[in-house]
């Protein structure tokens, strides 16, 4: 289960300087919102089929909190953070090389991997490239825009429904062999229609409360040396793309006047209701 920390872009949390540049230090880090769907997919797969779910992220030490959040919300068993200064300022290419190396190391030293789940593009980079590039490096198949999935553990195959958006939205059903990477669509919704699955879900939640409280004990951090990566091929030096500049798009000024009204103020609400009257159904 791959996740990334991103600036909290929600209203009130995000902070910009006078030039419209993001003030990274003043903006808290949260889990990339799209990753929540991937987490749910990983949890659903684990509830239905059993297994072990690990969270993995690449970023500064503070991203441990994002992994802790994953443990709390979807009950990951343990966390792996790929982190050191040499990895800073990686583009999607360098990130994919690093993450795929992390997954390879995990397979060699921890356990074999059947599925890797990732969210659909990050809220800060918006490239949607890291997942496919990681898969390319691993030489695994990738299934994107997944809105529902099921696994046949005996056949070691995955069957997934993909939401294909276009002039007409379509739902495509695809199959892929394991191991495989699954990228969830924001439309993904887990379903638990079996009592046994809900009981498992409830048990995992109870077990996780204690584990998440001591997240540090379940966190492994690997640096570039652990991953056996050449500094020339990772981080800023290993990144063929750089972001040369960011131009803020100024918000268009509102052409209409806004009047704030307290909904509890009966007299002030009077004209609002009168305005709405013609649009209300019935009499």
């Amino acid at each position, binding site marked *: 289960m791959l996740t990334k920390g991103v600036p909290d872009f929600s209203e009130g949390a995000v902070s910009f300087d006078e030039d419209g540049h993001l003030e990274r230090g003043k903006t808290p880090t949260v889990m990339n919102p799209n990753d929540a769907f991937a987490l749910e997919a990983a949890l659903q797969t684990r509830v239905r089929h059993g297994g072990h779910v690990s969270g993995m992220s690449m970023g500064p030490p503070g991203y441990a909190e994002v992994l802790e959040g994953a443990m709390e919300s979807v009950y990951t068993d343990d966390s792996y953070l790929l982190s050191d200064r040499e990895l800073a300022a990686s583009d999607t290419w360098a990130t994919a090389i690093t993450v795929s190396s992390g997954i390879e190391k995990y397979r060699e030293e921890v356990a074999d991997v059947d599925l890797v789940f990732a969210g659909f593009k990050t809220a800060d980079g918006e490239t949607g490239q890291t997942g496919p590039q990681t898969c390319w490096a691993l030489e695994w198949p990738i299934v994107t825009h997944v809105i529902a999935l099921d696994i046949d553990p005996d056949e070691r195959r995955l069957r997934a429904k993909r939401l294909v958006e276009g002039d007409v939205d379509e739902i495509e059903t695809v199959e892929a062999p394991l191991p495989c990477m699954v990228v969830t669509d924001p439309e993904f919704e887990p379903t638990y229609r079996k*009592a046994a699955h809900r*009981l498992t879900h409830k048990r995992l939640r109870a077990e996780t409360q204690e584990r998440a409280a001591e997240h540090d004990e379940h966190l492994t951090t690997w640096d570039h040396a652990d991953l056996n990566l050449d500094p020339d091929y990772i981080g800023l030096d290993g990144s063929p793309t750089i972001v040369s500049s960011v131009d803020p798009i100024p918000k268009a000024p509102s052409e209409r006047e806004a009047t704030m009204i307290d909904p509890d103020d009966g007299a002030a609400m009077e004209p609002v209701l009168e305005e709405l009257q013609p649009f209300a159904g019935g009499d």
Partner: protein
Amino acid sequence: MSEYEHYEAVVVGCGPGGAAAAARLAEHGVETLVLERGVEAGSKNVSGGLIYAEDSAPYTIDGLFDGFREEAAERPVTDYRIHNIAGDKVKTYDLTDLHEHDTDWCDAVLRRKMDSWLEARVHEKTSETGGGVLTNVRVNGLLREDGEIVGVTCDELDPIEADLIVAADGVNSELAREAGLMDWEEPDEWFQGVKAVVDMDPEAVNHRFGIDDNEGVAHLFSGDLFEDVRGGGFLYTNEESLSIGTVFHLDSLVAEQAEPHELLDALLTHPVMAHWIGDGYDEREYAAKLVPDSKKVAHREPYRDRLVLVGDAAGQMQAQGPIIKGMNHAVTAGALAADAFAITRGNADPEAAGRRYAKLLEDSGTMAKLRPKQYELARTVGERETVTNVVDRVLESPLGSVALGNPLADRVLERAYNSPFLVSMLPDTRTGYTTVPTVIGEARGKSIRWKNDAEPPTLEERIGDLTYDTDVGNPHIELRDASVKASGAAVYACPVSAEAFGGGCYRTEQVKTNGDEETLVSLDTQPCVECGTCAIVADTAWEHPRGGKGVEYRQG
């Protein structure tokens, strides 16, 4: 092999009946799944709130759940009284003897706290035998195979098969109705209770009732403060609140066109309450529930195929004069149903457990409490209107008042009230509920002139203070006949509707059709408290909301 999930036992509802059944099943080693439609057990439950442990009962809640009284209950009842009221005159009898008859202990409870505590214990117990408790799951019907009940269907889960299905899904049990064992037809088979939980500092509770931390009171109220509506009021002390409520025969509410919340307010604002409520009335929660009258509806054979009914679902609610016992009987019934299954486990006859359960209800004396023989005999003469009228006229006459009002009669009456045998005979007429208490109050009572400043919230405020998760676009009640004749009674009988209030569930509207103007009843289920009143007094298709949806009681 069947395509469905299978559990040895499925228990529907995690109130005291379901909890007792599930705990006992787990003790027998039975794989037991408990399905509860609330976000947490207790969030859909209301009771007056006294739970009894009877000396004569085979099971008690603290016997099944260690630590129940310390962790899940409020105060024990150490003082039990009835107040006979006529205007501002009040005559009080001590009912402690009646209360203590066959009583090991009796505690006030608030259902959210109690049932959620039970849920946690039940989940621990049932997890050990391969099951557990699931909340937010509404069982919506029975799974049948060749016409025979073999399991349950749910809104949130695929169908589940079970060898035993315990319907502990409350007074409005959809399973009991689908199985054809209960109905919603006759208003005279039901009571409706409404309750306010009033916030109060524990020191104030102690001071105002003259009790210590580990003591509590139960007060009952009857007489003319509810005019001619048959029923009464109650006040119980909790640790940091009071439960004050009223319970009326549903047919009487309908006949008198009474507004339940106004009857509650009549009690809350009566001078007798002034001292106890004090100034600064702070209502935590308004709640309502239907109460089955076990004398009339307790099912003697509460089973069909693999389905057994427990507690309110089976009409096992004993309400006879001042005795109101429900939860204890649900606990006994739940445990007995579990025992019946354990005894007959492996029997090829699908009704073996049900039959054994009915026999255990009889043999344990539970059914005799729910359907007392004395009542069956007495009601044949007592509940005829002519008898009631004659008796009432005598009682209301100067002669009758002297008879009831003299000091000797006072002692006799207090003794009579305290006789479990006589109380179980009380016919359900206005004589017992209104006439006698009023005459007693009038002749023997002292005037109370305390000023009661309590200002209970309006119905609109009460609804506004409740927590709802509305299932938008998916109303759980459908009005089948909107004519005033068929469904007009709901406008006043519904505890969250009122004649002059447009913000409740039911209201009347003038509708113009082809030049004619006609009065029709309309329904908005958003403020619904799921009590079931309208299922009886109006023509509806009534279901519970989906799991986790609808009203969520915080006190209960």
